[in-house]
């Protein structure tokens, strides 16, 4: 596959290394002169110098082919947004991936349909949530396009649903249990299956229904 990486900092350059190692074709765009010189010594013709939000720079780097994936990894969120908008809407690139530097800018990415996005802060928060599940509910996967998410909920001893069957537990509308993990084994849920304390339920639901679901399954 052909990847165009905008921004050759730590993220962009390591990404390029990894992709090249896997046999992909990669072009990196880097604006800062010093950084460009370093990259050129390593990546040679695979790195272009310039501002990746300028159309002629993108074109010189081969955006008209177009690349299979454009990854915007600069340190400026507004630049990453514009790079993705130009790639997608002007050059017909099908997949764009954007780095979010400041999580407070996430609404801009969402509003303009720039997806998927990757944020170090959000990833670490997710890990913390997973390691310290204070809220009894762990986000596993977000399916933005489908407006769905998959969460994991562990049933504790106090939960009112412990001891009830799945059929007896009324879940919020738009949510459903897709798997029950018991003693390390995932089982397919069925109506007469009895829930036990310690079971981990995987549920699919619409974002925003987490609290309702938690009420029913955790606090009961």
């Amino acid at each position, binding site marked *: 596959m052909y990847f165009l990486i905008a921004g050759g900092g730590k993220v962009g350059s390591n990404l390029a290394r990894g992709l090249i190692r896997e046999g992909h074709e990669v072009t990196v765009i880097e604006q800062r002169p010093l950084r460009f010189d370093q990259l050129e010594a390593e990546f040679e013709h695979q790195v272009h110098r310039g501002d990746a939000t300028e*159309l002629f720079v993108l074109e010189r780097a081969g955006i008209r082919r177009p690349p299979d994936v454009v990854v915007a990894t600069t340190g400026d969120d*507004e630049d990453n947004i514009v790079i993705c*908008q130009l790639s997608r809407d002007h050059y017909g690139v099908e997949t764009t991936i954007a780095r979010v530097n400041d999580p407070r800018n996430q609404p*801009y990415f969402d509003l303009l349909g720039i997806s998927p996005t990757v944020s170090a802060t959000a990833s670490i928060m997710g890990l913390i949530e997973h390691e310290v599940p204070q809220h009894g509910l762990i986000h596993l996967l977000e399916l933005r396009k489908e407006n769905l998410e998959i969460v994991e909920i562990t049933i504790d001893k106090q939960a009112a649903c412990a001891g009830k069957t799945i059929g007896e537990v009324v879940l919020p509308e738009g949510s459903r249990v897709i798997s029950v993990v018991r003693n390390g084994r995932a089982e397919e849920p069925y109506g007469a299956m009895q829930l036990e304390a310690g079971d981990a339920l995987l549920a699919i639901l619409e974002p925003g229904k987490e609290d309702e679901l938690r009420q029913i399954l955790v606090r009961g």
Partner: protein
Amino acid sequence: MIGCGRVGSAVALELANAGWEVSAVDEREEALGRLGDDWAGEFYVGHGMDIQLLRMAGIEDADAVVVTTDGDNSNIVIGQMAQKQFDVRLVVVRILDPARAEFFKSRGLNVVCPTQSAIETLTNAVRTFEGALS
């Protein structure tokens, strides 16, 4: 007014003189100085992409938003936010790069490109001179 440099401050003053109620936002506190000692409008210090700050500055009730920070890409994303999220009726965005200006104009943004204006003015000046020669 988001961005209150040489251009933004002058536009803010013109509009305030014309009777508009103006709220200005700029990253640098010194920008307030450009608005003069008699500035009666509001002034907020902070980044123009800070949504909370924009709300504080009154973007939700604004009839018009003019975006003239020193970054083309900041202006592009702030302008789209004002238009799509806050439904501001008139959003005018300054973009210095003619290529990006043209593209975002085609995407429904109200764009002013001073570079393009300068190109046209300069070209016309030479053409007029040329006409006078022949």
